[in-house]
């Protein structure tokens, strides 16, 4: 069974929501990424979304843009990101890794090389922010035939017809973008999100993650009660930016641990 499915099955049995940290690979330096991934797992991460840095991250807010800029100026390339997963797997065979990024680096590497390498280093899913299902036919087939789950986004603007269509193509889990905006915005409305989640559940049995705008432990705990996974990106990345490199491995996982604890206590009341 693949790692994503196994992970969500276990969490479902334990009646817990997944905690999914996002970090940009190579931020602030490539050498720090793999140790940080391990530290995040120790601090309670169930799945890791590993960002592929891109020069023009159109859907991201300033925090993740700057993370991309730091990673790029440290020389991080897509092939380095894939190498990081390979090294991570030497010690961790169970935590699912989802690569998240924009299409151009993948397109320039070539779809085939990308999916073959991603499969061989044991990536579990791929989320390409600027590749909607309408444009995904070719890459989608390649991903699936190489045991890589194409992860799709759903948004507040997504119509019921589109939700239905996207759900039929989705694998692994669905990522609900909690608000109209870029990553790291701050207007998340829990009640609105809950309504939309109820609507989406009509069309799919796949786990539903929620991201964009989850900044603190209490929001994470609230979202954990209505979804299957909590994605935290900008809040984490901001701490990477604010912390001297030598202390990142201590400070950043500690923040994740706060979210984990808030999500797990009090125990989740319903699934």
């Amino acid at each position, binding site marked *: 069974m693949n790692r994503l499915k196994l992970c969500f099955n276990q969490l479902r049995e334990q009646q817990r929501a997944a905690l999914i940290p996002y970090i940009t690979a190579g931020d602030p330096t490539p050498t720090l990424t793999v140790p940080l991934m391990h530290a995040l797992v120790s601090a309670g991460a169930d799945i890791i979304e590993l960002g592929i840095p891109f020069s023009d991250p159109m*859907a991201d807010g300033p925090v993740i843009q700057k993370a991309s800029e730091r990673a790029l100026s440290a020389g991080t390339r897509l092939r380095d990101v894939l190498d990081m997963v390979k090294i991570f797997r030497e010690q961790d065979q169970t935590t699912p890794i989802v690569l998240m990024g924009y299409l*151009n680096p993948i397109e320039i590497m070539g779809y085939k090389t990308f999916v073959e390498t991603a499969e061989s280093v044991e990536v579990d899913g791929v989320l390409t922010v600027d590749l*909607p299902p309408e444009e995904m036919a070719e890459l989608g087939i390649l991903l699936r035939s190489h045991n890589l789950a194409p992860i799709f986004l759903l*948004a*507040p*603007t997504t119509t019921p017809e*589109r939700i239905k269509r996207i759900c039929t193509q989705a694998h692994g889990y669905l990522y609900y*973008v909690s608000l109209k*905006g870029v990553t790291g915005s701050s207007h998340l409305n829990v009640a609105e999100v809950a309504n939309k989640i109820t609507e989406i559940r009509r069309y799919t049995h796949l786990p539903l993650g929620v991201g964009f705008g989850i900044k603190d432990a209490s929001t994470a705990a609230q979202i954990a009660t209505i979804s299957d996974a909590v994605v935290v990106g900008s809040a984490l990345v901001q701490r990477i930016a604010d912390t001297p490199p030598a202390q990142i491995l201590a400070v950043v996982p500690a923040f994740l641990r706060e979210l984990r604890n808030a999500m797990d206590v009090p125990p989740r009341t319903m699934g």
Partner: protein
Amino acid sequence: MFNTRQNRFIPHTRVKICGITRPQDALVAAQLGVDAIGLVFYEKSPRVITVEQAQAIVRDLPPFVTVVGLFVNAKPPWVSHILSQVSLDSLQFHGEETPEYCATFGKPYIKALRMHPDLDIPLEAQRYTQASAILLDSYVPDVQGGTGVVFDWQRIPTHISKPLIIAGGLTPDNVSQVIATLRPYAVDVSGGVESAKGIKDATKMTAFMKGVSMSITYLMTKDISHSLPDEHGHFGTYGGCFVAETLMQPLEELRQAYEHYLQDSTFLAELNNDLHHFVGRPSPLYHATRWSEQLGGAQIYLKREDLNHTGAHKINNTVGQALLAKRMGKTRVIAETGAGQHGVATATVAARFGLKCVVYMGAKDIKRQAINVYRMRLLGAEVRAVESGSQTLKDALNEAMRDWVTHVDDTFYIIGTVAGPHPYPVMVRHFQAVIGRETRQQIKVLAGRLPDVLIACVGGGSNAIGLFYPFLEDRNIVIYGVEAAGEGIATGHHAAPLCAGKPGVLHGNRTYLMTDDNGQIIETHSISAGLDYPGVGPEHAWLKDNGRVQYVAITDQEALAAFHDLTKLEGIMPALESSHALAYCKKVAPTLSQDKIIIVNLSGRGDKDIHTVATLEGISL
């Protein structure tokens, strides 16, 4: 008359492989479906063969492959001797043979013509009245790169009284484009399919034949240019809609509104009214007689988009989109801007229609274009500096997209060029095509006919598409899109994705990009802020690949020289963007005769660039 270029039926293009020296090469050629082979009987050629070799080749050849014997200024008894020994179907003469000489052997013959500058092709075709075809060798020894070949093609008239065979410089890589562009009766290849002189390479011959058959696709897509993009915004593999999920529905709503109001007569009347009374259309088509005379060739006409309100073509589009924004009930418009022209045009229509306006501009560009920043503020717009990335146009576009995704309910994003996600490329083309439609009518009145050449600068490419689009189906018109070569393509400091980039995905569409080997977008350079962009509209990418438009590049220095030329000779100060198109015109015009017509899109006026020009020349104002 042979007029295959206008023929809707797409005929098979015949292939001749010339300079065969070995029977096995002839056999491979025949198996690949080659229509003719050429045997060289000219002793100075490295591919010359003996009578015995020729006999061996012909003996093994299966039926329905024409054998052509090639001669250069040969004595008649030598030709007769070969004819008596080798079973040739046709002769081909490559020297200065007269029509009388060629006709004396009682065999069908092909006359080869080398493309000297003063060669009059139709006249020659008439002179060799008994020739079964004319072969044009388009190779020009002294000219580097593709430009020489392009000029040669342009000299090929549409109506020639003989079937046309194209030779010289053909390879498996360029044959599709040559066929798509010229629609010849046949192509003739020799060196392009060889591993050594006279030794044909089976792999290369196969690739060449594949290229020939691929040209059918090129020809078919060329014939349906008016029906593109498809319903999802694709121009071939380019275009499309590459955005995050949140924007998919807003873009769909925009597409529906745009398609609806295009059919709405009240909307169209309002648009036309504003184009006339607010923008000042139609813009004149001006015969630049002094400049034409100085260059000593074709007659140059300038489409005066610089005379529009706000001084550039940009306002054609912003008026259209602002009207659409009003109809869609949006109260706020946003825009990205590089040079500031699109920002000014957006701020202007926002003032005109009472809309709130925010313009995103790279922090670097804000410094370069202080006057336009102040203009926008005077018009009531808020100009927001973009500090991320390279702090130029591409980053302003990223930031405008971020704003849109956050305020999608009340905000209309007015994109300034024929790029971005569907439906922007087709919508902006529609609003800018007024340039080409007017030009068509005006040149017919002024010159009594359509032009021979169109030239426009290409950054994102909206002024170019605006001029080109209504002429794409007129196959005889040669069209040039001029990119910014900056400090020179070789230096890497340029903004010429079509000439030196590769396909990728950025800003919502697949197109040619300036991207490094790791998929990161490269910083661009151009003297003109309006061309300083790493992508280009997807329709240009498609027009490049199918060969309908030739894309070339002009350096900062060449553009600057053209800026001065037009200013001093015609009293018209062009924008530095438009100066790139003018600089290319300077190269083309002298190569054409005085009865030819070139139209250059003078997309904007140069007042905004005075500081840039002065600084470059060490003058402080």
